[in-house]
C-alpha cells in the first residue's frame, strides 16, 4: 500500500508516495532517476549498489524504503559538493582506481562509509571492509592505493 515516506537524500528532503516495501535500489534508479547506484547481483554479494545511510555503508538492493524513513541517505551523486570532487573521488581519478567504472560508485560509497567510521584504518581493516565489493576488471591494486591515499591524509573530509 502506498504511504508517505520522507527521507533526506543527498542533503535535500524527499517525500514519496510509495509502497514502503519497495527496494531502495530500484526507487533510486527509477522514481528518482539516480542511476549512479548500480545493480550487480541483487542479493548483497557484490557491492555495486552501495549507498550510505546515516553514515553507514549499506547495500541498496537489501534496503527497503521503510528502512530509510526519516533517515539521511547519500548516493554517489551526492558526494561531490559545490562542483568539487570528494577527496575519495579525486583519489580514484588520480590513482586510476577504476576501469569499466560500473562498480566504482559502490566502491567509493563503501570507502566513504568506512572512512566516516574510521578515518585512518589499517590496511587489514580496509581490505576487510572492501571485501564485499567486486571489481571484475580487477583494478584492486589502485582501488586500495586510492583509499589509502585518503586515509593517510590528515584533516581531509571523509
Amino acid at each position, binding site marked *: 500500500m502506498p504511504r508517505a515516506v520522507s527521507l533526506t537524500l543527498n542533503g535535500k528532503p524527499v517525500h514519496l508516495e510509495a509502497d514502503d516495501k*519497495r*527496494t531502495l535500489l*530500484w526507487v533510486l*534508479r*527509477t522514481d528518482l*532517476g*539516480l*542511476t*549512479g*547506484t*548500480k*545493480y*550487480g*547481483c*541483487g*542479493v548483497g*554479494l*557484490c557491492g*555495486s549498489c552501495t549507498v550510505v545511510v546515516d553514515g553507514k555503508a549499506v547495500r541498496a538492493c537489501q534496503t527497503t524504503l521503510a528502512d530509510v524513513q526519516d533517515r539521511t541517505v547519500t*548516493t*554517489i*551523486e551526492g*558526494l*561531490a559538493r559545490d562542483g568539487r*570532487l570528494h577527496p575519495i*573521488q*579525486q583519489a*580514484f*581519478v*588520480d590513482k*586510476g582506481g*577504476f*576501469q*569499466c*567504472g*560500473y*562498480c*566504482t*560508485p559502490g566502491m*567509493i560509497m563503501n570507502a566513504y562509509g568506512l572512512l566516516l567510521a574510521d578515518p585512518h584504518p589499517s590496511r587489514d581493516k580496509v*581490505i*576487510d571492509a*572492501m*571485501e*564485499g*565489493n*567486486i*571489481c*571484475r*576488471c*580487477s*583494478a*584492486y*591494486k*589502485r*582501488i*586500495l592505493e586510492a583509499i589509502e591515499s585518503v586515509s593517510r591524509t590528515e584533516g581531509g573530509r571523509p
Partner: protein
Amino acid sequence: MSGTFDRRSFLRAVGGGIVVLVRLRPTAALAQGRGYPSDLNAYLRIGDDGRVTVFSGKIEMGQGVMTSLAQMAAEDLGVGLDAIEMVMGDTDRCPWDMGTFGSLTTRMFGPALRAAAAEARQILLRLASEKLGVPKDRLVVEKGVVSVKGEPTRKVSYGALARGQALLKTVDDKAAQRTVAEFTVMGGSPKRLDGIDKVTGAGKYAADVRLPGLLHARVLRPPAHGAKLVRVDTSEARKMDGVTVVETDGLVAVLHTDPETAEAALGRLRPEWSPAPPGADTEGIFEHLLGRAPQPEVRGVKGDVEAARAAATRRFESTFQKGYVAHAPMEPHASTATFENGRLTVWASTQTPFPTRDRLAQVLSLDPKAVRVVTPYVGGGFGGKSAGLQSDEAARLAKLTGRPVQVAFSRAEEFFHDTFDPACVVKITSALDGAGKITLWDYEVYFAGDRAAELFYDVPHARMRVFGGWRGAGNEAHRFAVGPWRAPGANMNVFARESHVDVMAAAAGIDPVEFRLRNMGDERMRRVLQAAAQAFGWTPAAAPSRRGWGVACGIDSASYSVLAVEVKVDRSSGKVRVERVVCAQDMGVVVNPEGATMQIEGSITMGLGYVLTEELRFRGGEVLDTNFDSYEVPRLSWLPRIETVLVKNDAVPPQGGGEPAIVPMGGAIANAVFDATGKRVYRLPMTPARVKAALA
C-alpha cells in the same frame, strides 16, 4: 559509411569544417589473419571552434581506449588532449567497425586514426601557409596553434583555419606519422578522459537510459538449456495493475514501469517445460568433449615426429583440462530500445554495435538505415558482450508494445545466457635428450583452438593438432553457448605448454628459467624472460625448491609477456595464496604506460579467478551457479604484490595490451604450486579440493 557515400551530404551532416576519413589498407587487415574487414574507416573533424571530434565505432569498456585513441589523435594532429572529444560506438555517427575485441584497437585502429590526424595536420599547415604567407617548412604547431618559426606573434589557430571550410579528404594509414622521439602526448599517462564520469556516477550505461514511459521487461527463461516451453498460464500476471504481458514467437515477457513489479509478475507466470535432455556434467564434460572431437587441423609440423617418438629415451606425457569460465562483468547485459516512426534506436551494452545493428535490422525486418545502436559506457566485456540476446528482445518488445522497453539481465540470467569460455583439453607428448634439450613436441588441443599455442622453444620434431576451436565444433559438443573470453583459448594453451615445460625441467633437475633459456632461441622472448627473472630476484634452483616460485612465458596479441610468481599453499585446506607477481612485457611502442600497466595489473588479478576458483558448474543443461556466492571471482583480499616491467622496444609498433598478461597466469601458478609442494595440478581451476587431492 560503406557502400555509396555522398560526400556533400556527409560534410553537411557533420557540420562542415575539416574532415579526414581513413580507409585501412586491406593488406594490414589480412596480415592479422582474423578476417578483419577491409573497409574499416575512421574519421575526425576539426570544427571552427578548434575542437577536434574523433568518431570511432570502437567502444570503451574499461580498457581505456577512449583515452589512448584521443592521445594518438592529439599527437599526430598537434593539439592538446583537452581539445579532443571522442564519439564512440554510435552507428549513426561513427564509421563502420566490426567490434572491440582481440586487443586490436591500438594495433589496427590506432595507425588508421594516427594517419587521419597526420593528414589533417598537413591540410592545416597548407591553409596556414596560405594565410600567413610563408612556406610550410617555416611553420610550427603547438596545441592547435600554427605560428611562424621564430615569430610567435605571427600565428593562426586551427579553429580559425577550419572556419568556413568544407573539406573532406580520404587517406590510407601510410601518411607520415610522428616518431617516438617526437612524441609529446603519446608515451605519456594523462588522467583518463572517462574518470570524472565514472567517479561521480554521471557516466551512463545501457540500463541507465531513462525515457518517458519506459517499461522494464522480465523475460521468461527456461530452467535448463534444452528445456522447451510447452504452455504457459499468464492469467495471474495479467491481473496485476499496470502489467503488460507479451507472448510471441518463443518470447514470453512481462513489463511494467517498475522493474520490481515486473519481477513479481514474472513470478506469477505458470510455465510448463518439457524436460531438458540429459547430458554431461561438470566432471564428465572432458570425456564427452573427447568423444565429440572433430577431425584435427594439423599445424606447425617440423622434422619427423613419429621417428622422434620412437627414438626418445626420456618421454613425457601430460593431459590438461579446464572447465567453463563465465565472463561475469559487473554490468549484466542490458539494452534500452525505442521504436518510433519506423525507426529503431537501441542503447546496448555491447562490444559489437555495428553487427548488432545489422542483426536487429534482420530481426525486425528493417532497413539497417532505420536502426541505430548507441553504445554508452560498457561495464566490462572481456569478450562476453559480443552476443546480445537482450538487444533483440528489447527491440522486439519495443516494437510490439509501442513503448520504450528495457531488458536488463539479472545476475542469474547473466550466468545462464553467457557465452562461456569453453571447457577444453590439451594432451602433450614430449622428449628430452641428455643435455636438457627438448627433442620432441607433439601437441593436441581439443576445443580451445591454437591461439598462443605456437612453440617459441627450439624443438627439431614438432607437431600441433587442433581438434576444434573455442567457438565449438558445430556438433553440439557444448550444451550452452561458448565464445571469446579475454584471449580466447590462449589461457589454456599457455597453461598446458608452460606446465609441461616445467615437468621436463623438474625431471632434468634444471632450474625452470635456465631450462627455458637453454631451449629458446627467440631473442625477444629471452630478453623478456630475463627481465622478469631479474625483477623478481630469481636465483636458480631445480623444482621443487619449496620456495613456491613459478615462471611462465606467453605471446599473445603480438605482445610478449612473462610472469614470475610466488605462492603459499596451505596444505591442510589446499588453498593457494598468490603472494607476488612480477610481469615483464614487451608490447612494442607503449602509447600510455600507466594505462598499459593498469591493463597488466587487471589481467593478473582477474587471472587469479580462472586459475584458482572460477568454473561454471552444471548438470546437463542446468546451470548450477547463479550468483557470486558459489561462483567465486577475485576480491580485494586476493590481491598479490604486483610489479610490472615494460620492456622497451620502440622498433615494434604498439601491440595488444588488454590480454597478454592474463595468458601465462595458469602456467606460472601451477609451476609455483609444484615448486612449493612437489605435486602438480593438471586441471583448472586449481580449487582447494583439487590441490588437496594432489597433495594426498
